């Protein structure tokens, strides 16, 4: 009946020891869990804080086009450089018919298909523009720096285009065309155009030497910001970055080339611009 009574002293001691051991194990487990939780809270807190600070910083680092200090004169707040019949970039007195269709062309100077677009439709656009039927809005964007072998060619070429639009607006269209005619191939082993080569294209397009020289020296990118004491926002790089961001925001899917006719993205299934005449047709249809 009374089992405990029949336990020997040794048995009782063993039992007590086992109970003590169990208790200690439990205490150790609790301590371990508490320590784990403490470390988790500390590490987790640091991580959350880091992510929050990082995100706030990243969000604040984006400036909208309206906040960019230096914008090419006459450029739109959607990042476009309008050119009318007189062929002068951003000319406010752009002479064009009142019902002129606005054709916006988003392109990256490194994008091969953009080159094909210019080849196929450049002349058509120039012609329609000169006759005052359309206003061409050039949107240079920079999305292919990754594919330019570390030379940031997309950003450099777009910045040069913005600089020319601002400081030699009458040479802009020719310079734009020259960049496409001399487009480097989008692979890692081709030599991308150097600043000096871009400057040469600008000179040939009729850009005054004083402006071309700032491209040649790299000054247009603000690389001499320290030496000249010139702040970075005195270049058109922030404009190119903000214009690219705005284009991505406006289009949702920023692919190049994207053609927008009077605010409507050109449906390339309906109008295949790779076939001559299709773009003109789309413009005529938009005119109604």
């Amino acid at each position, binding site marked *: 009946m009374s089992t405990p009574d029949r336990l020997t002293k040794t048995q009782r001691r063993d039992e007590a020891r086992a109970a003590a051991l169990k208790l200690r194990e439990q205490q150790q*487990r609790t301590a*371990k*869990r508490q*320590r*784990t939780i403490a*470390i*988790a809270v500390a*590490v987790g807190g640091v*991580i959350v804080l*880091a*992510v929050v600070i*990082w*995100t706030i910083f*990243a*969000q604040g*680092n*984006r400036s909208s086009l309206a906040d960019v200090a230096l914008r090419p004169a006459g450029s739109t707040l959607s990042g476009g450089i309008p050119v009318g019949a007189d062929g002068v970039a951003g000319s406010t007195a752009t002479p064009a018919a009142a019902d002129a269709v606005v054709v916006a062309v988003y392109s990256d100077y490194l994008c091969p298909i953009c080159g094909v677009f210019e080849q196929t439709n450049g002349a058509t656009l120039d012609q329609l523009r000169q006759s005052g039927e359309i206003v061409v809005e050039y949107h240079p964007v920079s*999305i292919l*720096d*990754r594919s330019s072998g570390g030379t940031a060619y997309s950003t450099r070429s777009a910045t040069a285009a913005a600089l020319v639009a601002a400081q030699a607006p009458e040479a802009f269209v020719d310079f734009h065309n020259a960049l496409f005619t001399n487009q480097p191939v989008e692979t890692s082993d081709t030599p991308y155009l150097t600043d000096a080569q871009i400057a040469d294209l600008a000179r040939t397009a009729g850009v005054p030497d004083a402006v071309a020289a700032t491209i040649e020296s790299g000054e247009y990118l603000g690389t001499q910001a320290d030496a000249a004491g010139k702040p970075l926002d005195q270049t058109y790089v922030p404009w190119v*970055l903000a214009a*690219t*961001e705005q284009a*991505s*925001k406006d289009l*949702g*899917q*920023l*692919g190049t080339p994207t053609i927008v006719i009077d605010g409507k993205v050109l449906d390339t299934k309906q109008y295949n611009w790779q076939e001559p005449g299709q773009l003109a047709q789309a413009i005529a249809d938009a005119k109604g």
Partner: protein
Amino acid sequence: MRAATDPSQPIVATRPVCPWVATALRVGLGAVALVAGLAKLSDLPESVRAVRAYQLLPEGLAVLTGNALPLVEVILGVLLVLGLFTRVSAAAFGLMLVAFCIGIGSAWARGLAIECGCFGGGGVIDPANTSYVLDLLRDVALITVAAVLVRRPHSRLSLDSALDLSL
């Protein structure tokens, strides 16, 4: 039988190979997260554009995701490589991968022609160059690895075991 093994690490005693396999899986998964995050970290605007191209999130959330995702991936990658809070880290990265799969699958289903942007890049591409199947297969493989680690988080050379944390 059970009593002979260390109660905190029963698997070690019974299947000594397992923790080393877990180490390999953990470091592998962490390396993928780390590489993916670092690739995006170098160009945040591009990361935002890549998220936008999926056309799934509203503008504000897309920007937030594009900015925060690279850092989160780097952090989870570091935690996995170090083996700190392996189970939670693997679970978190696994859930992110599930979300990526949903995004890629939905882009595919909607007939979008975009790059996944998983390791930088992203955005619109030629429809002939899309690689949705490969992207999904890779992500499913990674999800499997993450799931194994959630079930068996104990591994050698981990901070979890060095700090003797309860998982």
